[in-house]
């Protein structure tokens, strides 16, 4: 199948009073997140965090989120809060739901000792 034509599956997660949607994180994003603490400069760390949001959100959604963030004082914690929600949403999507309508296992019959 043409990779470009593959349907995009978004995940939704809470932000402010509503919800926003983004593509689930991939390994490269998770690895980058775990490596940013080694960057010495805060502004560079913030660049990477915003870079991940920009990569995973539609342009208009990203613009809206950035507008809301910049309306207040933006720091790493604000962006990390959103990314943590996205990490959780990604985990939920990747965790298979328990099978529905699966009959509970029959209890083993208990026999009295002879």
């Amino acid at each position, binding site marked *: 199948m043409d990779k470009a034509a593959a349907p995009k599956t978004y995940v939704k997660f809470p932000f402010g009073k509503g919800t926003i949607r983004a593509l689930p994180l991939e390994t*490269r994003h998770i*690895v*980058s997140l*775990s490596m*940013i603490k*080694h*960057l*010495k400069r805060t502004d560079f760390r913030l*660049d990477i965090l915003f870079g991940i949001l920009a990569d995973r959100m539609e342009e208009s959604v990203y613009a809206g989120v950035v507008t809301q963030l910049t309306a207040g004082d933006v720091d790493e914690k604000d962006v990390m809060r959103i990314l943590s929600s996205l990490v959780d949403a990604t985990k939920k999507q990747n965790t298979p739901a328990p099978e529905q309508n699966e009959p509970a296992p029959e209890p083993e019959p208990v026999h009295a000792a002879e």
Partner: protein
Amino acid sequence: MPQSDYASPYANGDVTVYVGDRVLTVSRVAAPWVECVMSPVGPSALLAGLPAHDAGAWVLQDMVTGVVTPRDVSEAAYALLGAVSPFSWWKTARLLALSSRPDICGRLSLERVDPWSLTVAQWVCAVYALITKGLDETARFKINAPLDDPPAGVVDDNWMSDAEFAAMVAQSRNAPGQT
């Protein structure tokens, strides 16, 4: 395969490593290497924390945008570790990690071995000398075996050069019964 400039591992100048299109310069001073190699993400953290001029941020940006893959970054980190030490990259990483243990760090400090004034090669050699000091052959083997054992999925072919391998294949082709 990422490359780095393979000068002598005992050189004390900066070392260059290539990740995608980026050319990164990394200091050989040992202390920051210990911190980075102890990261939960493993040796790849070297590429975020060590390059001069905060160039580690470029590497992460390239990874976020898919220009390089986590595997590219890992392989560059392994090449970097292999270039700055006389040991394999995994033995170097293990010796760096060992040096963060309080007992080993303490004994090195008592000997006035300073990670801020030594190169990575000198530091890992000092750690190795410390943990094998006074051991007989059997005890030394017990130390070497887990340090030398390649991680899962890594093939250690350094024991035979390409030329030696080609000669061995040629010889086996000429053996009786071969067509």
